[in-house]
């Protein structure tokens, strides 16, 4: 019997229950892996839009599939928890911070591409944007992993955040963006997500009868 009465730890434990299934990283991993292949698809003759389509379809389809199968596959094993808005506040701020960081990065990238940046910023090497983006990605996943008590999110943040800088250092002359590091990060997420899901199915059998019905 767990005798922990630390409220903060209880909160984290309740949050971590929602991430026991590994399905989120299966979806995100496939999304990032396909996103890494956008330039490769484009080099193969597809339009920019067509190249993004597989990633968008997998992401949207994965989310829809998750919400459709959640009651039968997840809730029937883990039960249901509704987190209060008060407790959810740190995750909401994290999401706002992540969106703000991405928008700032995107704005810098667009301005740099269009030559609108003044002075030193315009002359700054492009790796600065990639480094900033990498730090933002890592921070997002690290904070997320911290708040929900899922240490494997640190690994995702590290792999995804370091992908672009690694690509620039080891493959600086690649004509199209070399998908290797980001593709690897996505595939690792898919593999880990798959392993977490398999472990979840074994550790949490479907609960039926009076326990499930309360």
């Amino acid at each position, binding site marked *: 019997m767990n005798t922990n009465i630390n409220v903060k730890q209880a909160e984290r434990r309740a949050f971590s*229950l929602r991430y026991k299934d590994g399905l989120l990283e299966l979806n995100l991993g496939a999304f990032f892996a396909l996103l890494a292949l956008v330039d490769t698809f484009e080099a193969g003759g597809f339009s920019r839009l067509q190249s993004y389509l597989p990633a968008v379809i997998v992401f949207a389809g994965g989310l829809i599939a998750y919400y459709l199968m959640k009651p039968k596959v997840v809730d029937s094993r883990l039960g249901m*928890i509704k987190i*209060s808005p008060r*407790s959810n506040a740190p995750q909401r701020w994290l999401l706002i911070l992540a969106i703000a960081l991405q928008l700032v990065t995107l704005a810098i990238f667009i301005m740099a591409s269009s030559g609108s940046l003044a002075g030193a910023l315009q002359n700054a090497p492009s790796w600065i944007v990639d480094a900033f983006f990498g730090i933002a990605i890592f921070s997002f996943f690290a904070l997320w992993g911290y708040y929900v008590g899922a240490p494997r999110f640190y690994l995702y943040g590290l792999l995804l955040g370091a992908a672009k800088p690694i690509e620039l250092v080891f493959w600086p002359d690649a004509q199209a963006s070399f998908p290797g590091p980001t593709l690897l990060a996505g595939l690792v997420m898919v593999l880990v997500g798959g392993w977490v899901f398999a472990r979840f199915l074994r550790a949490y059998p479907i609960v039926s009868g009076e*326990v499930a*019905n309360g």
Partner: protein
Amino acid sequence: MDNIDSNDQHPLAGIDRVIHAPARLMVMTYLYVVDKADYVSLTHLTGLTWGNLSTHVGKLEEAGYVKIEKKFVGKKPHSLLMLTKQGRAAFKAYKQNLSSVLNQLPD
């Protein structure tokens, strides 16, 4: 013989014994941090068996600290547990009472 003044009683003497049992304290703690939870998730979080959990939830409900919301998910009945306002206030008071006593103890 001197009568014991009620002011001489230890602060923990008046502690809420409904909450003070370890199993009920765990249930109250988890319900304090989430809005609602069902029996299945509480058995996973607390490690209590279904029977044990059901007994303790019954006592908390009797004390007016926990409310059970029954609804249907599909065709199956489903119960969600949550703290009442009284339960939330009682838990806060319990937490403060215990902290104020334990924090004064030397290391």
